[in-house]
Structures are given as structure tokens and as C-alpha cells.
């Protein structure tokens, strides 16, 4: 361990000097930069919020704050049944228009959505802000892919101590979406 720390310290000094030089030459006159939004497209659009079968990805709620946190409750079963939803009915339960949700903090960055309602239903969800925590501006190497088996995912019924998922971003999305829909609810 101490050997590793020495290496890190040395690397830090070397890299630190590089960064000092970099910052001096590139950022002496820069204005404050805003948080980064996905690099390649001006906005990332989800054209419809129709749920994929067999389960729905989100549950629009009428309250401004999402009613659930996707962390595992202590030693409870995660049942395979589909959760009840409050999805818009066929005649629509939302007022037509465009609604911007609140900015929700996903630690990696903010998430903010803009929802379009037409015919009383959600027709478009657009990201105004999305955490750019996953690098997308990289080169994809063409690696030979071994044939790893592919299977449909299946819900498990099991007691667990914790749950691993892309929770942070998804929770922030639900909060922002819920606040947009709350404005659209008559």
C-alpha cells in the first residue's frame, strides 16, 4: 500500500504540473462554463413515453416529489408483479401544452425534462439537462466479440440487502418528470 501511495503521489505531482500548465494556457481568460449537456445532439429526445412491454419504465405521479426511492428496503422481497401506475387514460388526463420540470440533482449533474402534452397525453419528453457522467465522445474500437449467451431478463423474487442500478439518474428523471406533469394536471 505505501508503495502504491508513493506512485500515486508522484503521478499526482507529474500530472499536477501538466494540469497547472494546461489551466494557465487555456483557462486564464475563460468565463465560467455551464454544466455539460450530452455532447453530440443539442438535446436528447424521447419521442414517446409509451411503455415497453411488459413493464412501464416510469410512473407519472401527481405529486411533485416521486413517492419512491429505488433503494432496497431492508430485507424485503422484490416481487415480480407489475406495479400499479397512474398512466394517462385513453381520453387523456393532462392539459395540452408544454411543461418544464424542476431541475433535479442527480449528483453527477442535473436532470431536467420538458414534457409536451397533446390530446391530453404525453407525446414528447425532452431533456433540457442530463448528467454527462458517461463519456460518449470516445472512439469505439472494433473488438472481436465472443459469443456470450443472450437471454431475456426475468424478474426474481428474492430477499436482498441492497440493489444495484442506475438509480441516481433515474430518480432525478422521475422527479423532474413528476413536477412537469404536476403542472399539466388540471
Amino acid at each position, binding site marked *: 500500500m505505501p508503495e502504491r501511495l508513493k506512485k500515486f503521489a508522484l503521478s499526482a505531482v507529474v500530472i499536477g504540473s501538466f*494540469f497547472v500548465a494546461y489551466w494557465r494556457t487555456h483557462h486564464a481568460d475563460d468565463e465560467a462554463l455551464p454544466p455539460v449537456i450530452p455532447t453530440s445532439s443539442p438535446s436528447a429526445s424521447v419521442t414517446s413515453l409509451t411503455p415497453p412491454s411488459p413493464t412501464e419504465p416510469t410512473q407519472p405521479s401527481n405529486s411533485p416529489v416521486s413517492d419512491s426511492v*429505488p433503494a432496497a428496503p431492508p430485507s424485503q422481497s422484490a*416481487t415480480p408483479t407489475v406495479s400499479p401506475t397512474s398512466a394517462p387514460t385513453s381520453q387523456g388526463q393532462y392539459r395540452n401544452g408544454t411543461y418544464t420540470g424542476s431541475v*433535479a440533482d442527480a449528483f453527477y449533474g442535473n436532470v431536467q425534462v420538458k414534457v409536451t402534452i397533446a390530446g391530453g397525453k404525453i407525446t414528447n419528453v425532452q431533456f433540457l439537462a442530463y*448528467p454527462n457522467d458517461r463519456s*460518449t465522445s470516445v*472512439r469505439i*474500437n472494433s473488438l472481436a466479440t465472443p459469443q456470450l449467451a443472450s437471454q431475456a431478463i426475468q424478474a426474481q423474487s428474492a430477499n436482498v440487502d441492497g440493489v*444495484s442500478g442506475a438509480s441516481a439518474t433515474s430518480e432525478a428523471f422521475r422527479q423532474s418528470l413528476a413536477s412537469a406533469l404536476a403542472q399539466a394536471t388540471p
Partner: protein
Amino acid sequence: MIRETRLLMGMPVTLVIVDTHASHADIEREYLYLEGIDRRFSTYKPTSEISRLNRGELTLAQASDETRLIFALADQTKQETHGYFNIEKDGYIDPSGLVKGWAIQQVANRLAERGFANYMVDIGGDIQTAGHGPSGSAWRLGVQNPFNPREIVKVVQLNDGAIATSGTYIRGQHIYNPYKAGPITDLVSLTVVGRRIYDVDRFATAAFAMAKEGVTFIDRLDGYEAYMIDSAGHGVATRGFIHYEGNDEDH
């Protein structure tokens, strides 16, 4: 056993200590430590060192040892992952992806130094375990269904192991690769399992950026296993992932 969950850094943070001599003060101490990390590294706090660095108000040489260490680790990871892990985006530096895994590792190390042998540290679904769980056998962690957060699709059993998941929650979100025409493929979730959360977390981030090649990258990496889910609901596991799986029949 003491278990507590708090919303911190915009995420649920769960700490569990199974050892009988644990007290609430031990848990509180770690939450305070994490609050300090948030103050230093949050890109959404204008007073954080990262924000000040990005505004040019601070040079790296003037920053804390901790910040310089994070930058050094980021550079090391970038090299190890052939450039896929990169905390700099369009001239703006955001180390949040690396800080998360590093912070969990720090808390786990701190608990070990205090003499605890059986604990779990969970920040937003990235989890480090040590020893055994509350029942006396392995810690059981669920892999969340990216299409339904109330469901799990795999159970992973760990003693002294770690798990992290990268993903985009939104089906149909297009991430474009500027070097190649058309969208990157439809990967929604990539879970990595290994010994230490710091390594697991950064490899999960890098592998996700590799789209469907990411699971291959992990398959070739000694000591790590992965489970990938695409937008059609297909799961692909690395060859050794099955060794970590728990069954419905357990418990």
C-alpha cells in the same frame, strides 16, 4: 446490526454494519465524511474545488491533496481503459463518476480501520461489501430491472465484493458516437462485479461507453464479471458471472 439510509449527494446512501459493537456514532461519522467529499467535489456547488478549478479560480497545484489524487487516478483509469474513461468533456472537468466509487472505497477502508469486518456501503446503487451480511451468510445484492425499478432481475452473492451499474434509464435515448455514423447501440444497463468498488465503478463507466463491446471488455478482464441488458430486455453475462449468482431457492 445498524442500518441507515440518507439522501446525500442527490442519491440514497445506505450504510450497514453487522458487527455487534457498531454504534450510531460510527455511522454518523461516515455520513459526515461523505458530506465533506460532496462539498469538495460537487459540480453543483459553486464553492467546491471542482467548480473553482473549472472557473479558473484555482489551479490544480493550489487544490487539496485529495483533488490532485483524484485527477491522478482519473488519468490512470483513462490509460487503462484506452481512453473510454475521461473526466474531461469539452474542456470542462467532471470527476463525479470516479469520485463516487472512490468515496465508497474510502468509507469501506475507514470502517475496516476501525475494526469492523462485516459491513455494506451503498451510494446510489454502487455497493462495497465486507464479510457476511445480517443473516450470517453472503451479502445478497439485486441487479435492478432498468425497465422497472421495483424489480430485480439477478441476485448476486458477495463476501468482500463490490457491484456497480452504469446505465441510461430512458429507453430510446440516443447517444451518438462522433467517430461513427448512427447511434451507439441500445445498451441500457451494465453491471460489473469484482473485488473493490473503486475498480468496479470505473470499469462499469468505461465499459458502458463501449456499448455492446463493453461486456466483452469485462469478459477479458481478470477478476471482474459483468451483466449487460439491452433495450429489448436481453441480458448477456460474462462467462464467470454465474459464479456470483444467487438463486431464488436460497433463503
